[in-house]
């Protein structure tokens, strides 16, 4: 391919990818209600969102779920990555294949399988079921992020520490965790974004009493035009974009 053609093609696809996002962001500041014409710059849709109690409650619920889910997924995932990297144990192949399969399972299948298991275990649908569901789909992302960072380690240092009598948990706290911290933080940020943006799993495992923002947005856009949605969408997009850029910078740092 000639370079001009190559750059042109990539430029075209990237433009097509980003145009819808841009249109949405610009329209969130558009005073004209239906967004057909530019009616002047305004913050009023953001104000409407801010003053809407139902939406604010949903936003707070979403934040709570995402923070709890991302934190638990990061703890379990980091430990699992260390285990997969450092130890030989029975069922190791099974554990890594479960990680692999849970990453590839279509979200809708994961959603109904979780719904069925919550019913079988008698877990009430609401905050707890949402958090468990979100941890489950975030977990493989944390494991993969931390594991690939650990793979680049110099293992001799850990051997030396062990020979000098350091316990496994001491090695973890003093050596592995500080070195893996960028990947651990990136894992948390990515989990937080995944959780904040999830629709499919949440639609199945949430209860009537616990509303979260993406599902609120979903029911609002199904009904028709409401410009607050543009404002909420812009906030969600910007939060994700910023967090992901930070996480990628963290993951890149050492290279």
């Amino acid at each position, binding site marked *: 391919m000639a370079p001009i053609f190559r750059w042109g093609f990539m430029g075209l696809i990237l433009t097509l990818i980003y145009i819808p996002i841009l249109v949405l962001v610009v329209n969130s500041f558009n005073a004209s209600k239906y967004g057909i014409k530019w009616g002047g710059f305004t913050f009023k849709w953001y104000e409407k969102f801010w003053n809407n109690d139902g939406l604010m409650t949903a936003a707070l619920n979403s934040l709570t779920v995402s923070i709890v889910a991302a934190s638990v997924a990061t703890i379990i995932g980091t430990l699992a990555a260390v285990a997969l990297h450092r130890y030989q144990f029975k069922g190791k192949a099974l554990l890594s294949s479960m990680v692999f399969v849970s990453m590839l*399972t279509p979200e809708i299948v994961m959603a109904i399988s979780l719904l069925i*298991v919550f019913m079988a275990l008698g877990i009430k649908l609401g905050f707890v079921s949402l958090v468990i569901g979100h941890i489950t789909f975030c977990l493989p992302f944390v494991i993969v992020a931390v594991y690939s960072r650990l793979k680049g380690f110099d293992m001799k240092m850990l051997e030396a520490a062990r020979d000098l009598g350091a316990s496994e948990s001491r090695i973890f706290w003093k050596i592995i965790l500080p070195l893996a911290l960028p990947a651990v933080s990136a894992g948390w940020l990515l989990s937080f974004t995944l959780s904040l943006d999830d629709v499919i799993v949440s639609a199945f495992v949430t209860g009537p009493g616990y509303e979260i923002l993406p599902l609120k947005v979903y029911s609002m856009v199904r009904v028709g035009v409401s410009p607050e949605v543009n404002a909420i969408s812009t906030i969600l997009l910007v939060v994700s974009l910023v967090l992901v850029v930070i996480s990628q910078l963290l993951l890149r740092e050492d290279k």
Partner: protein
Amino acid sequence: MKTNVGQFRFWAIGLASVWLTLFVFFPNLLVIFTSFLTRDPQATVSLPINADSYIRTLDFLYLKVLWDSLRMSLLAMIVCLFIGYPFAMAIVSLPKRWQPVILFLVILPFWTNSLVRTYAIQFILGNQGIINKSLIGLGLIDKPLQLLYTQFAVILGLCYILLPFMVLPLYSALEKLDVRLHHAARDLGAGPLSRFWHITVPLTSPGIVAGCLMVLLPAMGMFYISDLLGGAKNLLLGNVIKTQFLHTRDWPFGSAFSVILIVLLGFMLWLYFRASRFVSKQGGLNGSDF
């Protein structure tokens, strides 16, 4: 100290193992089990075990939905492949320091809210959307084109959301490709097309299968894309499953549809491992072997 070693190890291995067994492995078995149960208005599901749900999926109405969903998802997969492959090739041909930048720009939207981006597409395609407004403004058409609530819109939405999943595995497959194979083939007189078809495509086949898997399977489940862009007529399998679980409350029937997805996943994984084995046999020319 011995116990200390054991304790950390125990928790590191144990937590994730228990979690994934309880919330991934066990639930998937339960889905398969549920698909063989009978619907029960009181207890949601009950015995006896039977294959009625599967027999009902063969009903003409559901076969048609299944076929429509599969066709839209397959078309989205093919479009993604035909855009993603040249795109990944273009990235690989860039200087090394540019590659991660472009790759990052493609992957970035994956991390943002896909519902919101679907809504943006709805906004653009609508009767009052940018496309129709500009075409009317330019005098090319008199009344708006029906772009929204069509199969075209659903396929476009699926491609838009899922393209990164195609580019990523293709990129990593193409990046591993040994350029010396191309040089050797050229020296032996093979043209560019022949080199592409006989070297590049076979040796990146695991990437192709992985990309197709990661587009096709989620595509069948994304109920909100068909909901927002396809209207009530153009359903995906995800819509059927959602209705069965959340509205009709026929869990065995909904589970049977999910098992179809699980089987498809299994088949594509099998294909992927075959392709990888083929490449490691045929293409084992890179790196240390020389």
